[in-house]
């Protein structure tokens, strides 16, 4: 049985309030011992692989996007066997409610959530505000290792990419559709190929995918790292972009982590029915031979085919 939903009024306005929990709710569950067993497992997923070791939410386990979720050879996610082994190692069963949180307004936590959904894990939620909100409220962090026992028997599930993951050719056939580039404005125009202060991953062309609209991911986040209220999100994605929640939508960024954040906003907070994350993103597109590229602030035209 999945654990009861967070009834906090602030969450109920969203299309899928069951995908979010508040810090208060999580703190109460932990205090009540409800996060000790297999019903509820709290997972930290950060950009910085050592941040968890500096102190984490009591009982939380760590899943690293790079070491645990990515295949170490092919540019892809782990397969069903590796995912099952990861779940078993952390005491997560197929019926476990997983609450993810992390640094940077939950970028990597949202990315991890998206990977959990590639494997169809039913009940995965985000801690609204992530690590920063928990810390800002002075809630407990500990360096004590979780005592959670490993489990066994997480089923080997074949990843279902198609519903929420877009590949290069999908995007090529989607030009002119609801395509969102969530990178910074300078990356969108082509002035630079990576975020300020971030590694250059060797992208040989700057710019954006023609017809993509620019909405930097952070516009969906409030100052405290929580998601903005629904009305403010609608003002951006529905009114400003004129997008329709019933129409297919694809989001991309540089490697797919920032666009996971936007994917979550569109899919679960605004209830878009069909949203895919293009995880190849600019590090694939900006290197692709003969792929069309638009530079400057305008979305540009889809090339005639």
């Amino acid at each position, binding site marked *: 049985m999945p654990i009861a939903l967070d009834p906090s009024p602030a969450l109920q306005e969203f299309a899928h309030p069951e995908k979010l929990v508040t810090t208060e709710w999580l703190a109460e569950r932990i205090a009540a011992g409800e996060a000790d067993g297999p019903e509820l497992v709290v997972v930290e997923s950060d*950009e*910085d*692989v*050592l*941040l968890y*070791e*500096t102190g984490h939410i009591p009982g939380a386990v760590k899943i*690293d996007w*790079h*070491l645990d979720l990515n295949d170490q050879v092919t540019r892809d996610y782990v397969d069903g066997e590796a995912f099952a082994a990861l779940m078993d190692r952390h005491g997560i069963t197929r019926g476990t409610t997983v609450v993810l949180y992390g*640094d940077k307004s939950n970028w990597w936590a949202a990315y991890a959530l998206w990977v959990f959904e590639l494997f169809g894990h039913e009940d995965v939620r985000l801690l609204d505000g992530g690590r920063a909100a928990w810390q800002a409220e002075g809630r407990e962090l500990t360096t004590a290792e979780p005592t959670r026992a490993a489990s066994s028997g997480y089923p080997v599930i074949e990843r279902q990419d198609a519903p929420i993951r877009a590949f290069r050719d999908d995007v090529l056939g989607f030009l002119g559709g609801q395509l969102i580039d969530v990178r910074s404005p300078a990356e969108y125009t082509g002035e630079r190929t*990576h975020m300020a*202060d*971030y*590694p*250059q991953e060797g992208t040989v062309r700057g710019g954006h995918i023609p017809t993509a609209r620019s909405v930097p991911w952070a516009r969906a986040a409030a100052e405290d790292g929580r998601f903005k209220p629904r009305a403010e999100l609608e003002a951006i994605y529905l009114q400003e972009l004129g997008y329709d929640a019933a129409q297919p939508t694809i989001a991309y960024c540089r490697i797919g982590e920032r666009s996971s954040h936007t994917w979550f906003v569109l899919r679960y907070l605004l209830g878009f029915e069909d949203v895919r994350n293009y995880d190849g993103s600019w590090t694939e597109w900006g290197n692709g031979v003969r792929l069309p590229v638009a530079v400057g602030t305008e979305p540009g035209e889809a090339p005639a085919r």
Partner: protein
Amino acid sequence: MSPIDHTVPDAQDALPEAFQEIADDFHALGPKDRLQLLLEFSQSLPELPERYAEHPELLEPVPECQSPIFLVTEVEGSGREAIAHLFFSAPQEAPTTRGFASILAEALDGRTVGEVLDTPEGVTRGLGLAEVVSPLRLNGMAGMLARIKRQLVEKAGA
């Protein structure tokens, strides 16, 4: 200098002495404890001296790193015999990057410019960290080392 542990797949070339000691410490530990040791390094990264803390524009950014880090070098003397000093600034929320900086500070601060310049580029791969922090993240440490060397060449005329 102790012999290279050939059971370690990523240690191919002999490491400089200063790195060898750090590498031995890491290789003596299992993966979880290696992270703990890296965390201890991150906690012992010296604070910036005031002359830099008040003048962040004097520090050079290292864009190869995942998280913002800035560094600056000083030299006492000139040429390869000059003594190199290294200073770093990285936020507490970036412990991995701080840990990398702290390892470089421990291994290279106070050595001669010549010794720093002779440090092989691949030194960061010999520490046993690739499997616990990922090779992608280790690129950040290599980026710091390259920038340190470039600054020292300019400043010491080496």
